[in-house]
């Protein structure tokens, strides 16, 4: 748990820095404009780019759900990397597009939903990667002790079960995606309705 705490601190610090940097960049980009950056042509464009970057994150869960043979064939792992990369880069671009402005509640709710999905994903990945690393380490140690494979598997299954108790993040990550998509669509429709094409 100590390594988990250290990693959690590091991830929190990096996330806070990235959020601050994104809001700072929006502030810089707004200087000299007649409006906040998000309401300029470049700001709109960045919002669309952020959305386009974000869209590939859905390929991984869809493949996992509708192509159960994917893990065996080994083509799920690259999509998981895409899921993680796009799931970080997309929200950062959207944070720059949004800036630290919290007046209109529809985009604010969409941003909160996006934050919940992103943070829960980061928490999940942090816990999961640490657990996998610990399992591999333990597997090596047990092998070196010369334990039979059956006993090793039994002990590792116990350890894996402990990791599963930390899967509370899953209860946020996938479900909040649904209100996020709905609120984002609503925000886009509203922006086009009031702001024009």
């Amino acid at each position: 748990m100590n390594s988990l705490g250290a990693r959690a601190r590091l991830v929190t610090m990096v996330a806070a820095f990235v959020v601050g940097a994104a809001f700072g960049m929006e502030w810089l980009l707004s200087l000299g404009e007649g409006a906040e950056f998000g309401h300029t042509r470049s700001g709109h464009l960045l919002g669309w780019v952020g959305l386009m970057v974000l869209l590939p994150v859905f390929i991984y869960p869809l493949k996992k759900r509708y192509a159960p043979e994917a893990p065996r064939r080994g083509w799920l792992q690259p999509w998981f990397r895409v899921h993680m990369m796009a799931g970080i880069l997309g929200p950062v671009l959207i944070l720059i597009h949004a800036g630290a402005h919290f007046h209109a509640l529809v985009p604010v709710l969409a941003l909160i939903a996006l934050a919940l999905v992103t943070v829960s994903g980061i928490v999940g990945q942090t816990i999961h990667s640490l657990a996998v690393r610990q399992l591999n380490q333990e597997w090596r140690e047990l092998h070196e002790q010369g334990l039979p494979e059956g006993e090793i598997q039994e002990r590792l299954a116990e350890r894996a079960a402990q990791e599963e108790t930390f899967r509370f993040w899953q209860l946020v990550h996938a479900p909040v995606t649904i209100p996020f998509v709905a609120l984002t669509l609503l925000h886009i429709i509203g922006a086009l309705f009031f702001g024009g094409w």
Partner: protein
Amino acid sequence: MRYVPLPVPVMPNVFVGTLLLLAWLGWESYRAPETWWAPGDLSRAHADVGSCLHCHQPFKGAVSRNCVACHGETQIVRTASPDVAAAHIEVLRRKGNCLACHTEHRGVLAPITIGALHNPHGEFIFRATGARTCGVCHIISPEGGPPSLRDNQPVRQLLEQGKGAHRRGRMADCLRCHAGGVTEVGQDGNDR
């Protein structure tokens, strides 16, 4: 590591919850659209605008045609100084875009002219003088440059009542007499 799927009722419940959220947003948008959709409060100049569609045309944004519905030539000539009126009438006649110079939803006290001068007096000056815009006391050149004072009744009254305190370079001392935001100050300098 074993994949643990979510409990079965989670996703259907989230779907229903999202539908309820959207229905609530629809109702709230009907009741208070500015709270849910506007990027900021309307300026004091447009505080009495009753509907988003007074200025916005669906899927076209705020359009000059809607600005002109209220700010036509007659209204501009009646309310603006001759130089400001002339500049605006020229734009109206060539069917120029109002949004090239004007903006909105930046806050109650924010200027609606892009690149407009900052109000150094704060909200207090509007309460104290009853003015609604900077142009009541100042002549603001469309070419830019510092604004000059008008020679009209609100300005004369301000200068007389301040006994020198309201002259150029002295306005920053306003809180010496107007501490707490009081607008009326007695003969002895105390508020009443």
